[in-house]
């Protein structure tokens, strides 16, 4: 469709405005051919404001424009016009002076027009890499990453993904750092730690989406059925899957709220999740705060019971996430975009409780979680046996919400500061914003038709205490028990 405003903005002779002389409509005398579709393509060139010539006198021929080209032109036009403060006379005078090519070059040197055009079009360019390797640890937190494979979410975006079962978090980190994994399932604190160089070489990592929220539990050995009050837990040995994990931080927060110092009153050990059940049976540990399905599995094996769901500590806490290196995202922006979209869709699909049973069946087999399907189903549906004789019904025992709140990152950073994992002054907001891509995720969510929060940070309520993200320093120092 011929549009006046979509004429070449780098051409001194075009007038991008609709003026008084333009009479919009067909076949009127002196009508402006702006919206005239009946003319020969060559005649589409609109006239200057002064020229009264008939429409059939093109100044410069322009090829037919499709939707993409129209979009490109709109972008160029908008930018150039903005440059000149929307003063058309100035623009044309300037262009006559310097020529369109010079202006275009000068513009390109300060503004990546291509990227802007691509962003504006909001459709992806060709994928740089279609074959991807994504690592996952076989726990229910990785559900979106895993089920996107058998349920076709990756394929929908043109990606051929191999989901690789990984032995543990350290290996996932190392394989990601070395580039053997393009992206990986990680614990939410891990991208922060890796970016800051805590516990590994420093490499900028980004976390565009959270995988699951809630979904963990504190499980105790059956012999502690009478010790439900954490004050009785002095001297207990607990297992967590990794140092930089929500499990570690939530456990510490929980026991600290009950007056125990997690570094001196209890022992916290790092144990790979699959070994936790065996360790519990052997009574090497008294309990653990672990990802599912290992809490439910302990109940299934009749050696433990579920003391508390982590959702009752902090409802909506992030757990695991999808992370990759910043380098990967920069070098393969289109692939990254497609991957993010696939995972956001998968996450949203998983969050719908109607799909949970189907998903449980898809991810239980040997190639994925390799757990009995009844155990996985109890975790995903929230209807489960708690090992104390009751059937509980907690539908959001585990939930899937991709939005990576900046304030989540800030909370994690305050806890890392609190327990001495990081020292010195921490620019909480800056690190959170660099690593947790809340804005991008929100945009993708909206683009795919889901609702997304408009802000990127909000306060949380953890065990009755409010976390104010605007003042993390005070929060980190506000605890009776801590190393900060």
């Amino acid at each position, binding site marked *: 469709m011929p549009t006046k405003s979509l004429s070449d903005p780098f051409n001194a002779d075009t007038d991008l405005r609709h003026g008084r002389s333009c009479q919009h409509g067909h076949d009127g005398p002196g009508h402006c051919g702006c919206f005239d579709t009946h003319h020969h393509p060559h005649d589409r060139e609109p006239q200057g404001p002064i020229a009264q010539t008939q429409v059939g006198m093109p100044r410069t021929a322009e090829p037919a424009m499709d939707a993409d080209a129209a979009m490109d032109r709109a972008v160029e036009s908008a930018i150039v016009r903005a440059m000149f403060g929307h003063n058309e006379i100035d623009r044309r005078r300037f262009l006559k002076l310097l020529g369109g090519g010079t202006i275009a070059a000068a513009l390109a040197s300060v503004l990546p027009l291509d990227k802007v055009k691509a962003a504006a079009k909001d459709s992806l360019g060709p994928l740089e890499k279609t074959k991807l390797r994504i690592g996952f640890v076989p726990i229910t937190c990785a559900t979106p990453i895993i089920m996107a494979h058998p349920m076709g979410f990756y394929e929908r975006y043109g990606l051929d993904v191999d989901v690789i079962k990984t032995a543990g978090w350290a290996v996932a980190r190392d394989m990601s750092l070395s580039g053997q994994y393009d992206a990986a399932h990680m614990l939410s604190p891990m991208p922060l730690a890796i970016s800051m160089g805590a516990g590994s070489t420093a490499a900028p990592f980004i976390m565009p989406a959270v995988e699951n929220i809630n979904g963990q539990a504190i499980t105790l050995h059956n012999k502690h059925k009478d010790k439900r009050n954490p004050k009785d837990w002095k001297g207990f040995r607990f297992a967590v899957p990794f140092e930089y994990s929500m499990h570690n931080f939530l456990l510490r927060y929980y026991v600290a709220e009950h007056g125990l110092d997690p570094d001196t009153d209890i022992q916290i050990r790092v144990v790979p999740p699959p070994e936790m059940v065996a360790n519990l049976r052997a009574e090497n540990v008294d309990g653990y705060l672990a990802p599912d399905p290992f809490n439910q599995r302990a109940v*299934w094996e009749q050696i433990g019971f579920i003391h508390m769901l982590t959702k009752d500590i902090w409802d909506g806490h992030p757990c695991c996430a999808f992370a990759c290196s910043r380098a990967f995202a920069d070098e393969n922006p289109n692939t990254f975009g497609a991957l993010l979209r696939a995972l956001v869709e998968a996450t949203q699909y998983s969050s719908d409780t109607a799909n949970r049973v189907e998903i449980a069946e898809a991810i239980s087999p040997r190639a994925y979680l390799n757990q009995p399907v009844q155990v996985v189903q109890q975790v995903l549906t929230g209807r489960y046996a708690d090992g104390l004789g009751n059937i509980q019904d907690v539908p959001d025992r585990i939930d899937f919400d991709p939005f990576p709140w900046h304030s989540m990152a800030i909370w994690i950073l305050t806890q890392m500061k609190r327990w001495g994992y990081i020292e010195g002054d921490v620019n909480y907001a800056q690190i959170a914003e660099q690593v947790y891509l809340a804005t991008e995720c929100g945009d993708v969510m909206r683009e795919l038709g889901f609702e997304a929060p408009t802000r990127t940070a909000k306060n949380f309520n953890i065990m009755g205490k409010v976390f104010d993200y605007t003042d993390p320093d005070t929060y980190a120092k506000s605890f009776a028990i801590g190393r900060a």
Partner: protein
Amino acid sequence: MLSNLNLRAAIISISFLIVVLGLWQMATAPQALVGGTQELTEYELMMGIGAQTSGIPAPSQVISHAISELSQPFYDAGPNDKGIGLQLLYSVGRVLAGFGLAVVIAIPLGFVIGMSPVLNKAFDPYIQVLKPISPLAWMPLALFIIKDSNTSAIFVIFICSIWPMLINTAFGVAAVRNDWLNVARTLELSKLRTAFTVILPAAAPTILTGMRISVGIAWLVIVAAEMLVGGTGIGYYVWNEWNNLDLASVIFAILMIGIVGMLLDGVLVQASRFVRYQD
């Protein structure tokens, strides 16, 4: 007489196996279901009562699992789920690569060290320090430097299995009888010819003993390395089944590991038959 000996040994062996399996079966036979003919309540279903528990499995369970695994050993259902045959092949491949590399380096180096007392003393401290380091300690370092997990595993096999071969070769070469060396000298054999026609055959039984020990270590290491890193291989298979607390699978895998280890050793035993001599 010899056949009588073999026969008696075989009888004792098999009886022993039957007794052990019998005791094992009796100790682990699945108990009668709670409630007998009643339907299980929903709670009980959720608690896994009635389903297979993961205590020590009975031999019958292991055997039935073994049969199902071995009936299609080479299936490939993606990167995380392959048949036991494929996994074993991956592991054996890595072992042969690492072990082969170790052979290529250990035997010539051992030769040189064995023939030169100066070099022997010079290299000895390094050998003694590096020899006792466990593969599990090498693994993180290898992963960090080499990054690729497959190459790291092969490197770890190499660095752990090279020592017995190196030491045995050096020892075998140094212990070649002077008489034989004198024979070579009086026959004006060049150093190279002496090395190949006198020293090598003389030291060969010792070298092969070193190789046998090394291949055993290499096989040990690969299972541990694969459990750490995952991906493919019998070690990964064990770890994967362990995640599911599927002990029948784990026991079956252990048996397969033992059998393959035995076969690898057997190959070298046959090889050593070729080079042995009576003095």
